[in-house]
């Protein structure tokens, strides 16, 4: 007996949703496209928000940046929810085995008291910076315009919560779960002179109103500088001091920064390419926040790494700004 496998070929009526078809033509679409384009309402809102009655619920005027089409901010990583969590799950799996290995082998015992104190003084307080970044990215999620950028901001916001928690775990590993390292680090954050500039800057970002400006201040200026200072330069210093194993606990952040700056650079490029007005505005914001950040980070960078450190970080930031076509 011969078995005939029947596979029905049914003619589809259309290849994708009409809004995707209008943008890209009548052809099969990607999951990113169907899950991203035109998801957010743009017309016929019923009521003005009581909390901001001069604007609509979804309103492009919550930033001074102007875009013809807010969906120009395509995410080069093509993250929609499913793609995002699966990518992060892979990263956390590696992180989890790193943390487990570190704890099982009790690698903390190879770290000198002096270096341990440095980690608590310089690395662990960054959990509060990550928390600020969480809020600043949620700000763009809530008040930004168009799913392309607001979903990417949400993913970023959740990442920052995750990294705040990883940094807290580093503290707990160092203090044997007593929480003392976290208390010490918070005291640093609240009281030590070297941190006050950065804390004041964090508080300032949290009261800044233009969401695109907040995004640039946080995700470009502050992140670029801190990434270089902490996850490159301070990491090198720990290596030299025999505390290279800490690198296992910050690998997540290193990978994350690569992943995210790719997205952020694309956002900047797109905004700049849109108009000279956007470019001028971005240049002005970046100059302002670069100036504030340089001032705020100076004492911290010097105490943590020495006199040259900040200049190196600023140079890298300036390269990224130039590459985005801003200067």
């Amino acid at each position, binding site marked *: 007996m011969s078995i005939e496998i029947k596979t029905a070929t049914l003619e589809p009526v259309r290849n*994708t949703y009409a809004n995707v078809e209008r943008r890209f033509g009548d052809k099969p679409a990607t999951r990113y496209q169907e899950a991203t384009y035109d998801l957010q309402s743009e017309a016929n809102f019923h009521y003005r928000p009581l909390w901001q009655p001069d604007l609509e619920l979804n309103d492009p005027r919550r930033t001074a940046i102007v875009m013809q089409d807010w969906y120009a901010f395509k995410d080069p990583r093509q993250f929609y929810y499913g793609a995002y969590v699966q990518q992060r799950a892979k*990263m956390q799996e590696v992180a989890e085995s790193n943390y487990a290995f570190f704890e099982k082998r009790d690698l903390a015992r190879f770290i000198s008291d002096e270096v341990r104190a440095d980690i608590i003084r310089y690395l662990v307080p960054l*959990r509060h910076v990550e928390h600020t970044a969480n809020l600043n990215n949620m700000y763009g999620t809530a008040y930004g315009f168009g799913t392309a950028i607001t979903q990417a901001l949400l993913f970023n916001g*959740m990442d920052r919560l995750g990294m705040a*928690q990883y940094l807290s775990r580093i503290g707990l590993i160092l203090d044997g779960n007593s929480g003392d390292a976290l208390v010490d680090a918070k005291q640093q954050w*609240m009281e030590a002179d070297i941190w006050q500039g950065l804390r004041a800057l964090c508080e300032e970002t949290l*009261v800044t109103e233009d969401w695109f400006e907040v995004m640039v201040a946080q995700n470009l200026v502050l992140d670029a500088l801190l990434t270089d200072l902490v996850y490159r330069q301070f990491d090198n210093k720990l290596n030299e001091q025999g505390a290279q194993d800490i690198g296992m606990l910050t690998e997540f952040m290193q990978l994350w920064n690569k992943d995210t700056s790719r997205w952020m650079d694309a956002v900047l490029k797109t905004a700049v390419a849109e108009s000279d007005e956007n470019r001028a505005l971005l240049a002005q914001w970046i100059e302002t926040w670069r100036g504030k950040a340089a001032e705020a980070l100076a004492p911290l960078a010097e105490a943590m790494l020495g006199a040259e450190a900040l200049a190196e970080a600023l140079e890298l930031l300036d390269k990224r700004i130039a590459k985005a076509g801003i200067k």
Partner: protein
Amino acid sequence: MAAKKLNIKDKYRLLTRDLDWEFSYQDHKKAFPFEEFEGIKITDWSKWEDPFRLTMDAYWKYQAEKERKLYAIFDAFAQNNGQLNISDPRYVNALKVFLTGVSPLEYQAFQGFAHTGRQFGGVGARVACQMQSIDELRHVQTQVHAMSHYNKFFDGLQDWSHMHDRVWYLSVPKSFFNDARAAGPFEFMVAIGFSFEYVLTNLLFVPFMSGAAYNGDMATVTFGFSAQSDEARHMTLGLEVIKFLLEQHEDNVPIVQKWIDKWFWRGTRLLTIVSMMMDYMLPNKVMSWKEAWEVYFEEAGGALFKDLARYGIRMPKHADLIAKEKEHVSHQAWWIFYTHGHAAGFHTWIPTDEELDWLSEKYPDTFDKYYRPRWELAKEMEAKGERFYTKALPQLCTTCQIPMGFTEMDNPTQISYRESIYKDERYHFCSDGCKEIFDEEPEKYVQSWLPVHQIFQGNCGGPDVEDVLRDYYRMNVGADNLDIKGSPDEERWKKWKGVA
């Protein structure tokens, strides 16, 4: 050094709750500016009990696992043309209502919880809201992906987000969520977190998902199951919000009660669409709307409100009226759509004789008396080739935006009709509940974008209804609308199944 063992609560506090700090350089109120204007008093955010203590690493891990399984099913569904396994092509019209009417609400939930997830002054509450925000983004995106294959083979799904912003009956769900998001952050939480997610969600999701299961729709069943553990978290958040508000200050109690009354009423009006889906649109029935209301509201909700009585919270206002309406709403709603079927983005039909008998059996006190005769008449007209469509556009309730088709419960042949005059303008309502909501905040509801008014004012193109449907709604007129009989959907189905 032996590390001390931390319990989950302490660990979560250390990892998450202590991230916050007291501001020294800026006014904290400027960073969280919307906490006070509603009159809610929060004396101590640290009393917030985290409803679930999920760290991000665990979240990524569990959710990625769920997504992997879910998308494997979607792929298989598409590959095997899973749409051929559904009970009847009429079933897909429930999906059209879902994608155009409900999925965009998931999107608004994502936005609303992002707002509260940024605005609450307490880190525990903020983080819980953020997690719900990202879950809700998941829901809208997985729903779009689940329907993606159906969209390739059926009409009426293709322009769901464009339709949601414009089509007359879709302003009912849209305005519901716009209302909640336009409110202050605490009202949003009572509206969506508590009233919607905790009290009413089972009446939305269980019927749709069981409906999918009973009608052979693997794609929808799978995303429904996959969303269940998210929903469990959302429900605990909704309950924690209520308890937290009520425990923080006694002055919060009357405010919360007012919101519960409002959102319960608004919610039940919204669920009208589910009632008609259950009783009329599912070829294989799960249970009647009346039964669902009894199980999921009267029993479960009754126990909940008994529990909340110790805080001074009573049953929502008009719950007694809704107990009567459960006998009527689905029949009144499907009749509205049947008679306006030329202007709907999905197909309508007369129930089969078997289905009419089922309705008679499930609604012994009302169906034969009030509703069956209508359908018998519609059958006669259809048999004569005079399928009935009404020419008039319906008048809408200013609050819930449902066409004025509900009746008085002591006289179910009399349309229920209320009005208010505000600044010399007359506003119309379907019920006391909707009128009271308007009277409480007229400045808000005079803004309602009422689709029928908008058409009359020429804001939706025209001049004819068909022009509005084709140009403004972007419907494929003749394919998306009208009766299922003779529709391209039906024709294709017959071809696939090899029936004449």
